[in-house]
Structures are given as structure tokens and as C-alpha cells.
């Protein structure tokens, strides 16, 4: 639902770092506890930068989303559990006394630029 505005934020960040270089791929890291649909992000990506000022370097680029599972560490038994559902509970001993250690990531990690377009 908010994937389009998220794509616009990504486009602004990448265009700023690209500084005029033509971008081919953009890599995101998105945690499972973010209510963001990776396929929708990919679908919205072209819409987000097509015709937007300052983002021409993104034309034709592809968005690649790395999904990070949600994980908790148990404060009681120390076990690490990967969550299949958004219930914060230790798979080892069943307690809810856990610390969230992954799943909230929401980052632009890197992008690739076409170096053949660069003038040294």
C-alpha cells in the first residue's frame, strides 16, 4: 500500500549517491516484520522514478530485495529462534521473554552502476 512512497524514498537515496552515474541494479534489505511486499516494491519501482525529477539515472534499473527473516534471542535459555509467524516467542523453551534480533531491517544496501558509461 505504501510501497510507492517507499520506492520514491529509495529512488531519492540512490540517485543522490549515484551522482550522475547510470544505475543498473539496486539492492534492498527488508525484514519480515516490515509490512512491505517485496513483489509490490519491484512492481512500483519503475513508477517511482519514471519522469521524477533528478532520477533519470535510474531508468531501466532493477530492484533486488533481500528478505531477512524475523529472529529472536531468548533471555531465559539463550536459544535463537527464527519466527514463522509474528509471535515473539522462543522456539526452545516457549517463553515470550525474548529480544528481537532481526526482522526490522529496512535499508538500501548497495547499487550497481554501469562503468562503461563513466568518463574517467
Amino acid at each position, binding site marked *: 500500500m505504501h510501497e510507492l512512497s517507499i520506492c520514491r524514498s529509495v529512488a531519492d537515496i540512490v540517485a543522490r549517491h549515484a551522482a550522475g552515474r547510470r544505475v543498473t541494479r539496486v539492492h534492498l534489505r527488508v525484514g519480515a516484520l516490515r509490512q512491505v511486499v517485496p513483489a509490490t516494491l519491484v512492481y512500483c519501482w519503475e513508477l517511482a522514478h519514471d519522469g521524477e525529477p533528478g532520477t533519470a539515472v535510474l531508468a531501466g534499473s532493477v530492484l533486488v530485495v533481500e528478505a531477512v527473516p524475523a529472529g529472536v534471542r531468548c533471555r531465559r535459555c539463550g536459544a535463537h529462534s527464527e519466527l514463522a509467524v509474528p509471535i515473539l*516467542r522462543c522456539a526452545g523453551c516457549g517463553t515470550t521473554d525474548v529480544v528481537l534480533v532481526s526482522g526490522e531491517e529496512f535499508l538500501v544496501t548497495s547499487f550497481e552502476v554501469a562503468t562503461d558509461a563513466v568518463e574517467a
Partner: protein
Amino acid sequence: MGDHSGYRTGAERVEVLERILGENERVARANRAAFDAAGVTVVNLMSAPGAGKTTLLAETLRRLAPHRRIGVIEGDIETSLDADRLAGFGASIALVNTGNGFGGECHLDAPMIASALPRLPLAELDLVIIENVGNLVCPAEFAVGEDRRAMVFAVTEGEEKPLKYPVMFRSADLVLVNKTDLLPHLDFDTEAFRRNLDAVHPGVDVLAISARTGMGVNAWCDWLADPLGAPGAAPTR
């Protein structure tokens, strides 16, 4: 990330590691600074469409506006219908229409709140309530500079909702369980709801209310009188 390989063909990878919502977070911090400078407490009120935010807000203003100086930032996709319902209570209302051509945004973000600030007499206010766009998904992702988040959940929505929308339920400092006057007519399982809520947000404050009959609304107003004194959830980001 130098460009020493200017004539080589192929691709070069540029590391960024930047938070996608970093710009929103920056503007949210600026909003917060403006609120703090004016001595205003800010509550972000969120819910699904039809949970009763506006009715609750009208009842809240009716009780509190005679005693406290209140501002409301009203988010709505296309209309001023909600803002119209809140007029006449003596509060300052700033409307933010999120419509932008093809349907409108599904949430308020920090820049939208920033754009509404000049329309509120912040220095003269004690409390600002932000009525977010009705939506259980998107508003939870966007900090706007609030001190606390409250969400309105209506018993008509069903007891499984915390499991379906865990991000929203986890981000709320207070969950208002509304429309409890309808419980005799529903199969709503209050115990199951509390178990589901506890599974996604252990220990969150819960208040049963009926905006229609007024049950619990005074307790909500008491919470609003000192939301920072109330035990808050750990910040999620």
C-alpha cells in the same frame, strides 16, 4: 567508491547502507523538536477505517477542549468530512488531505505533518492529536514526531487482528478497545483477543471504551492528560 575504472565495461557495486525511511525520520525529529520547543505533547491516533477514531475524538474534544488547549491534525484521503465533524469544540483543526491524483497516500508521513504545523498555533497549545489515515498497515511504518501512539481497535474487527497486523499493534503504546457496547450482539472472544495482543505486544496498555456511550472515555482523557507519565512501549525503531 572511486571511479578509477572509467573505461572498463561492466558493473561497479556501490555500498550505501542507508535507512530507506531516513529522510522521513529526519523530518519527524524536526517536527518533534518544534513540538518540544512549544511545550506540546503529541499523540498519533491510528486505526482501521471505521474503528471510531473520529467519534472518539469528538467525545474527547467535548470533554477536554474546555480545559486544555488542543490541536488536531486530521489526515484524510480526499475529504474534509472528519474535520467538519470536529469543528465547533474549540480545538484548532488542521486538515491534511493526502490525495495526490491517483487515490492518495494511505498514511501520514513526517513531511505532511510538517506542512500542517504552520496552520496550528503551536505555542498556544498543550496537546496535539494526530488523527492518522484509517489503515492498519502503513501508518505504523511512518514516525511523524509524536510522543506516543494510541490505536483504536473496534471489537467488530475480530479477535485475530493483532496477528494479522502485528506491526501496528506492536507500535502502539495504548490500545483502545472500542465499540464494547456492541459486545452482547457479537461473538467477539475478549480473552482470545487479549492472548493475541499479548503474543505480538506483551504488556501493552489496554483500555476498553465505547465512544458511543462514553464508557471508558474519561479514562482515555486521563491518559491524554499525561501520556508521557503512562508506561510507554519500548521504541520499536
